[in-house]
């Protein structure tokens, strides 16, 4: 029994909501993953604010994973706090299937994708001084033809994006392995989180061959010290990422565009005679910061602040020390969490996250110096009021939130820039009822109206590459939209420590603009559905 409960990384089934998001394009299943389940990962980015399609999550997953957890580990992501954060034992295994489709998307993503994933996650406090946590996922995603991106993550803050004209279908395979261990040595705590992610993309239906591989190791090291009723902690995180892109002729000629900001990229023809187009990307993301956690009476709180830094280089020549394009970004991140029990059954939790970065881009083979700058920031806050479940009766939660994003990006070569800021209030609820002593049924819904204010380049004055690859995305972020989501959960307690569960969610996104901003604005809508089932062992 002890071994069973001690599982750190487990069966080829998985924790659906927690990790399906990281790879999937468009509407993001990660919206339904509680914030505290994501912060500890060593694979998270630093000084990067990836652009996502507008979305909203319900709180259904909160009923699966229990009340939100806060603290040095769960809020600050510092493994030195794992012993306090994971005194219990839990193992989750599940499988997920999800599908999204629709015309309302960016040009670098396809109309439809289908994802199947297996994953497992577990943690255990082995003793009062030692705890471990682990997660493993394996997923396959099939991208329908239409995607123009020839890179694994085309929506980061970096302006360097590789695209091609093939729009081939892609089969993506991804595996991640993450683990954390924490030790408590008297008043001191020390912890280490390690993570590794590997991806392989290969085209499926095209006359142009795309092959992309991505390897990402990462680690977090932290130290904590108790001082009276509070815990001070410092940590450092590092993530390295290496990506190799290979585009080759199969039976059609094609063209690759190395997009750099808002300029008109020159095409690189892909012909069998000239060999493959190969590009490498290396990324070093690091962060260092401190956190403090404590309690004021029944109120527990945690604060985090850290400096972030990202260094990205890209090159093509197969030689040692080739000339490299560079993207350098520096920023900061802050996070706060407060939790208070209002009554034995009502629990109030508030999270706030803020991040900011400034980045500069430099082309290797020109003498212009910095050719692109970006100043981006995001602030998100969320408050959840939860009615904790009993063996019988009602349970549920109400969540309200607000997100503000600001992105100012300037191409110094063509003197074009964009400025988009957006406010997104959100509200969601989840309500469930325990039937008998074993069955729990719940449902939830949420919406988050997205309201941007923007200044973007006039696509009519730009070239065809810009109009095709860039303008639709800027138009999409400059358009009002309202994502809505619905979800359900069925849980069955099979034994003393085992819970079987099945969950599903649907999400829909469409523009709220009565008139498209331009001829390049995406139309229609986009919808997503996912189903997951699994077992939780305690």
């Amino acid at each position, binding site marked *: 029994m002890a*071994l*069973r409960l*001690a*599982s*750190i*990384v*487990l*069966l*080829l089934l998985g924790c659906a909501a927690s990790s399906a998001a990281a790879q999937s394009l468009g509407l993001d299943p990660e919206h339904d993953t509680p914030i505290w389940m994501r912060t500890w990962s060593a694979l998270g980015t630093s000084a990067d604010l990836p652009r996502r399609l507008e979305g909203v999550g319900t709180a259904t997953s909160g009923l699966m994973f229990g009340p939100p957890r806060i603290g040095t580990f769960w809020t600050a992501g510092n493994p030195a706090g794992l012993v306090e954060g994971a005194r219990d034992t839990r*193992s989750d295994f599940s499988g997920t299937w999800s599908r999204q489709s629709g015309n309302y998307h960016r040009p670098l993503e396809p109309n439809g994708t289908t994802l199947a994933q297996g994953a*497992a996650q577990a943690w*255990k406090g*082995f003793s009062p001084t030692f705890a*471990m946590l*682990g997660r*493993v996922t*394996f997923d396959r995603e099939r991208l329908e033809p239409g995607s123009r991106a020839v890179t694994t993550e085309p929506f980061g803050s970096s302006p360097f994006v590789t695209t091609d004209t093939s729009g081939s279908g892609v*089969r993506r*395979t991804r*595996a991640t*392995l993450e*683990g954390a261990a924490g030790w408590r040595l008297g008043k001191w705590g020390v912890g280490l989180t390690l993570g*590794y992610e*590997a991806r*392989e993309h*290969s*085209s*499926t239906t095209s*006359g142009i*061959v*795309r*092959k992309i*591989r*991505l*390897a990402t*190791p990462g680690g977090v090291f932290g130290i904590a010290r108790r001082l009276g009723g509070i815990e001070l902690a410092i940590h450092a995180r590092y993530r*390295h990422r*290496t990506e*190799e892109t*290979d585009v*080759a*002729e*199969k*039976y059609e000629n094609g063209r690759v565009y190395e997009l750099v900001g808002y300029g008109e990229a020159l095409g690189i023809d892909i012909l*069998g005679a000239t060999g*493959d187009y*190969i590009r*490498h990307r290396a990324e070093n993301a690091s962060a260092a910061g401190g956190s403090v956690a404590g309690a004021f009476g029944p109120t527990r709180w945690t604060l985090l602040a850290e400096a972030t830094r990202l260094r990205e280089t890209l090159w093509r*020549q*197969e*030689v*040692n020390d080739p000339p490299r394009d560079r993207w350098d970004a520096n920023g900061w991140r802050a996070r706060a969490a407060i939790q208070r029990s209002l009554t034995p059954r009502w629990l109030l939790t508030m999270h706030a996250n803020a991040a900011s970065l400034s980045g500069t881009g430099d082309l290797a083979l020109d003498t212009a110096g910095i050719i692109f700058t970006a100043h981006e920031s995001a602030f998100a806050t969320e408050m959840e009021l939860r009615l904790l479940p009993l063996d019988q009766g009602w349970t549920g939660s109400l969540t309200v939130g607000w997100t503000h994003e600001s992105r100012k990006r300037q191409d110094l070569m063509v003197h074009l820039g964009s400025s988009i800021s957006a406010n997104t209030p959100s509200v969601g609820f989840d309500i469930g009822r325990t039937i008998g002593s074993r069955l729990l049924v719940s449902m939830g819904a949420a919406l988050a109206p997205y309201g941007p204010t923007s200044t973007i380049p006039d696509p009519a004055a730009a070239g065809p590459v810009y109009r095709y690859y860039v303008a639709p995305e800027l138009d999409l972020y400059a358009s009002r939209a309202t994502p809505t989501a619905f979800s359900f959960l069925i849980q069955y307690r099979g034994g003393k420590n085992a819970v079987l569960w099945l969950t599903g969610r649907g999400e829909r996104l469409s523009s709220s603009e009565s008139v498209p901003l331009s001829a390049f604005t995406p139309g229609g809508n986009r919808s997503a559905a996912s189903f997951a089932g699994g077992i939780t*062992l305690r």
Partner: protein
Amino acid sequence: MRQLRLAALLLVTASSLQAQGATLSGRVLDINGSAPLVQALVSIEGTILTATTDAQGRYRLETVPAGPQVIRAIRIGYAPVRRSVTIPPSGSLVQDIVMAKSALSLPGITVTADPVSRAKGELGTASVIEHEAIRNQSAASLQGLLELIPGVPLQPPGLDGVQQFGLRSVPISVGGGGNGPGAAQPSAGSLASFGTQIILDGVPISNNTNLQSLGPRGELSFSTSAGGGIDLRRLPASTIERVEVIRGIPSARFGDLTQGAVLVETRAGSIDPEVLTRLDARTVEASAVGGTALGHSNTVSSTLDLARTRIAPGQTDDESSRYSLQIAHRLEKGRVRLDTRFDGFQILEDLPERPLFPGFESMSRDRGLRVSERGRLDLGTKARLELTSAFESLRQRSFARENKLTGALPFTNRLTEGRQVGEFLGGIYNARVDVKGDPRFLYNRLELVSEPHWLAREETFRAGVELRREWNAGPGYLFDIASPAQISFNGVNGFDRPRRFDLIPPIVTTGLYVDERVSRRVGSEGTLSAQAGLRLDLLHDGRSWLSGVRDQSVQPRFNIELAPKPSFRLRVGGGRLAKLPALASLYPGQQYYDLINVNYFANNPAERLAVLTTRIVDKTNPNLGYSVADKVEAGFEADVGHRGAQVSFLVFRDRIKGGVGIQSTPTSFLREHFRIVDSTIGTGRPPDYEIPAFAADSFPVLIDRPDNNTILSSSGAELIAVIPEIPWIRTRIAVQGSYIKSRLETNAVEFRSNFSEFQVTGDFPRVPYWEGATRTGDRLLLTTRVIHQQPQAGLVVSGTFQFTLRETRQNFGATDTLSFAGYLTRAGELIPVPAVQRGAPQYADLRLPRSGLLSDAQKGPVDWLFSLQVAKTLPAGGRLSFYAFNTLDRIGNFGTRTVTARLFAPMRFGLELTMPVVVWR
């Protein structure tokens, strides 16, 4: 004879020593709660000592040989356990053994090859890979497991291409090139893999009669393992219980090898059934194993493996797939033990037509079925008789199809010498060749094993006879003569004709051997162990073992281990090994030369005329025989510190003489030219030609005959250090360093690549030739495995760093214009030119730069590779492994080379899930 005398001397020396033994006892306990385990089988590896635990979990073994020994405990439902102990010369030793359902829950699990263990019954240097190490290796086939021994580069798991393994050799640059003379010379890799014997469940696997080759011209190609070692893809790692790699000197029991032996034991007996699935971006694999006892005397088990690898997903539809099925039965009754095995497999490599290259495709498929029986009859307590018989039948099918373009080419399909009117082939056509081989292998061995106490109390004597018969019963090498696969005439290999394989005589051999192993105490705590043997191999020249002898090889071998104290062992070994030539070398078949007498190509096909004279040369070399390897090695092993660190170091030198290469023998044919008598343009018929010939010239050719003319020398050093678990970080480190230098010399002549121009045009009266170059390569590899274990969590993390500290390839042979050795005349004579005369004016036409020789050393920069595996027990007794080969997707250090996209194989990652099947019983 010197070796014989030495062996005899060793035996006599050993006889003056005395053997001792002790009593080993203890209890076998469950790791959870320390409950006694009843019916656990405890044995001493390499001996016949076994005991079964009683109701209190107790076992007792008497007269256990003194010195370092390995206790092995197995029990149904539990992971096998191996423990190293040092047995005192006398008295008793108590050793409890803890077993767990899953080995990952045991502290100190072995996930690397054991560097100081020995193959069963062998004293030669060996690496032993136990089942737990196999489970931690994430390998698709045996090749992936062999990465655990020193000097083997890491490779991605999968079935991507032919997998051959050669012990103690490194790549060197190859000789010749293209279709020119010397193209058929073997590489060091193929010689090494051909000489590495793979033995599956006590029976060798032979590749001697694999004829799936398109020959040296190779204008079409398909995947094949012909000419080298067996394709290891047929042996799934998931069904292997144990691998013993005899890197040093194998005992005289082993024949038909020059490098070493890899002994593979598949999972059989009473095994808790389990299924394994493996999934990564390219490979899908599923396998199942299970076995059960049937009554008190019988056990039956079965393994099944299905795997598929997409070779280049997205780019092509090429894929390799495998199925493998084994059924094993063991009967143990009284003094008799019978092991029966059925092995079936299929390896398919399919490269279908690609849209970009229509008309091009190839396929290779090997199917096989092997039945083997190993019988053991105990003759009292100190002797036994072992009989091994096996029959293997393979069905190999390969084809390649390509578009060919040729000008007007006269050809004939004549199969006898003489002249006839031929036809013309021209333009673009789709050539297809099928190679259908059906290798058969009959193997028998009768061996007497006894413990005679002639020389010592611990003594094992073996004497045996080994009978092999190998042949190929396939339809052969087939193609439509109207669309031949080979169209570029180079004058060396002529043109091909279809050939039946079932008409080729078999290889029939007899092996006789004796082997003696003794162990005696030296001083108060020292031990001297020696193993010496003599083997006689006979290659018959007929179809049966009663036929005459075509070649023979006498092979003395010895290994000595002196342990002044149990923790330190000095080792030395030496001997001779011999390898059969391949069937393709023994009977290379006939070569057809079609000499063109008339070549009249009119616009109207009906008016064309080609007259050709076919000459046939038999390339068989009646003197071809065994290649012989002389091997010697010396080193030491030491247990360092009280926690059991182990260090092993040895140096070795192997020299394979008479490796089968190609000897180009020049000769010349008379080519007659006939005059056209009349013009038939517009008549719709070909013209007549006039006999006798109006002219004739000599047409030089080279007959490429297989010959024992190649010497492959390898020397180097191996260092293995195993640092025991560092308790506070629960981490062990195993380091394997290997430096190997290989040198390939061929006693043959070489020509420039324009040799065919010399033959066909007649513009040159002579061409220069060069003597064979020496091709070398060396590599220094350092492989470090870091194994971290969390027994509480059932977690094992192993990371492998492989550093290539040095890798060079270089050829030695002069390349200047005065380096030619002589010249070949149109009459087919090789005329040597003394070095002092090569600058003379009459040799000006011969002073040409030599081509195809890598004169500057090719040196790779220092580089490293990292692979990771994390394994975890699962709640129901299963296990999940995450693996990532080339974890960081390193490209490799390019140095000054800029033409290769990658130097290292790309990252490969995935999951393996093993789950027990609880419904079996």
